[in-house]
């Protein structure tokens, strides 16, 4: 960790409250989401556990858990990190710092509304888009407010040169409003007829969980890895080539091979999956060469369970998740494995193994310099890294093997059951890690508030002096 970095203090001053507002709620939703996921997973151990409570129906728990992690943690936490990276790369303060504070509150309110709606059954019924329209409006307006602040910061940048991280993060900012409005307009507000709904939902899901996550996660990796590794990014031209080919091809993945749609739709996804090998290989080369190359400072960078480890593991998980995704584009494998737990394993790796870990690493790295204080529980940073790594690997492996076993066995549930039961342990480890994360964030917030209050009291206490000033 590089505390000795020289940062314009204005960046820290303006970012502090917005980031706390975004990260605090996000940490809470991560814990809530993983706890719900764990509860859902208990259904594998005893199917009739929640049989008398309609709000604990498995379908509701599953949807609520997915959305709490996706909309509650991933997106707001990512937006917070993007705000900071933009301010940092612009070498200027955050523009309109109060707007993201307001937006963070609207966003977290929207997530609360959406989750309650899922528990009482008011869902849209579309996977990864379960929040009803009221919650979607809140989320969308909050996103736009944060994006305005981010773009204003970007526009006011003192350092005019664009960095590789900029490409990815700017594209990500454009992506979300487009796909979110498309999905909500054509699926919720004025729904299209028939199976076109499903196609639009797949397009949305692929663009959010695969493309948007990759844009943000890769952007952050491009920003942090060179700093950690102590050497410049390897071959920026290859990175640009990877970026352009990635957004051109990845947007066409995501139509399941066995889907009840005309053959050209899955065939187009197969085509895109084949082409995805190009950007993935380019980006892999850039990462590997950046991380393994000799450091300019002469010392070999060590990660020791710190943020560097998070980013390294997260990037590896991204490559693995993509390599898990591409076979789903093969017509034969995709049509039988595409409706098993293998798909859930892939999205878990994408969301929990890649994105959550990268974001947590970024937060662990940037918050101390923003807040001007160390983490209250520095050991938790290392522990959480191990818990998340072990948890994600266990969860993903168990779900993937269970899914393939079930798919090869006439979709007989019994053949997946032992693996699904083991996956509960992975979720437990992930929950443990997220609790450490939340503890660090919340205790840091409380400490900062106490320090603020102390400072405030110090000003208010001596009334004599104040009167003197006034007179």
């Amino acid at each position, binding site marked *: 960790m590089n505390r000795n970095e020289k940062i314009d203090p204005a960046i820290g001053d303006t970012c502090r409250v917005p980031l706390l507002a975004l990260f605090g709620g996000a940490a809470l939703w991560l814990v809530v989401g993983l706890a719900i996921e764990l509860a859902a997973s208990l259904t594998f151990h005893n199917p009739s556990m929640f049989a008398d409570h309609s709000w604990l129906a498995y379908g509701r728990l599953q949807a609520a858990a997915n959305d709490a992690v996706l909309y509650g943690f991933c997106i707001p936490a990512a937006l917070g990190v993007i705000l900071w990276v933009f301010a940092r790369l612009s070498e200027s303060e955050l523009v309109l710092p109060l707007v993201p504070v307001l937006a963070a509150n609207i966003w977290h309110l929207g997530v609360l509304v959406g989750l309650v709606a899922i528990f009482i059954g008011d869902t849209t019924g579309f996977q990864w888009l379960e929040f009803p329209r009221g919650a979607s409006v809140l989320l969308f307006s909050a996103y736009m407010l944060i994006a305005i602040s981010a773009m204003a910061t970007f526009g006011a940048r003192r350092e005019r040169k664009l*960095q590789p991280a900029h490409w990815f993060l700017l594209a990500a900012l454009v992506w979300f409003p487009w796909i979110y409005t498309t999905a909500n307009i054509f699926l919720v507000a004025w729904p299209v007829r028939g199976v076109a709904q499903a196609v639009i939902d797949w397009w949305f899901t692929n663009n959010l969980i695969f493309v948007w996550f990759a844009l943000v996660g890769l952007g952050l990796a491009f920003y942090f890895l060179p700093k950690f590794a*102590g050497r410049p990014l390897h071959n920026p031209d290859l990175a640009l080539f990877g970026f352009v080919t990635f957004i051109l091809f990845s947007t066409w993945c995501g139509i399941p091979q066995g889907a009840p749609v*005309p053959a*050209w739709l899955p065939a*187009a996804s197969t*085509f895109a999956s084949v082409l995805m090998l190009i950007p993935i*290989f*380019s980006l892999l080369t850039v990462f590997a060469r950046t991380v393994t190359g000799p450091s*300019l400072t002469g*010392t070999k960078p060590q990660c020791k369970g710190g943020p560097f480890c998070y980013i390294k593991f997260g990037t590896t998980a991204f490559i693995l998740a993509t390599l898990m995704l591409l076979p789903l584009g093969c017509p034969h494998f995709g049509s039988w494995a595409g409706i098993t737990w293998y798909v859930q394993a892939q999205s878990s790796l994408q969301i929990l193994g890649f994105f959550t870990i990268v974001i947590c690493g970024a937060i662990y790295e940037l918050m101390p310099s923003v807040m001007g204080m160390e983490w209250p529980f520095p050991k938790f940073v290392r522990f959480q890294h191990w818990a998340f790594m072990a948890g994600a690997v266990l969860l993903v492996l168990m779900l993937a093997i269970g899914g393939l076993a079930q798919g090869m066995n006439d979709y007989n549930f019994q053949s997946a059951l032992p693996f699904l039961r083991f996956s509960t342990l992975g979720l437990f480890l992930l929950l443990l890690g997220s609790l450490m994360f939340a503890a660090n964030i919340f205790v840091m917030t409380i400490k900062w508030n106490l320090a603020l209050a102390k400072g405030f009291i110090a000003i208010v206490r001596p009334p004599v002096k104040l009167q003197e000033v006034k007179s």
Partner: protein
Amino acid sequence: MMSDDLKEHSPATEKPSSGDGFAVPVWIFCVALLLLFLGGVYFDEYSGWFNAQVYAPYTDANELESYQPVSGAAAILAQGKHTYDTICTACHGPDGSGKPGQAPPLAGSEWVNAAGHQRLVEIPQLGLNGQVTVEGQSWNLSMAAMGAGLSDSDLAAVLTYVRSSWGNKGDAISSDDVKTIRGSIAGHPAIAGDAGLKAIKE
């Protein structure tokens, strides 16, 4: 640990040793072209070129056409069964055994198994009221003109199905027969019981 002189913009300033220009290895472009070609061949072969009717496992419209079932005797029976299950089954029962208070049986009925088919084609098109004797049992119910809205081929198929199922033995009825009879009875009132049925010339 990072030195202060390694600024944010330093990554972009590192140029590969090859000098100016876009420093992406040429072989990546070659691989890209190869993948583009392979993917294109796959798409050409399996996509059906955006045809809304072509689903896997079919790969183009011609192949799909060649797999359309021809309407042989079995297809006609299947079509008739589908029509029967949609319309007739509610009263006459799925096995043609009829239901007390709703409809007489079709299975084994002398009217169904008669040599000619004139009456059988007329009943569903005109409806039937009043006293009817079927298999020695007397029924006094009314049947609406359930078949008036069916196409010639559907009516022919459902009657053929009735005449060849549940032990019934009757000839097939063609859609041309139905067409001819339909033209000859246009505007007739509903058939009135046994007397009305017997008045129909086979």
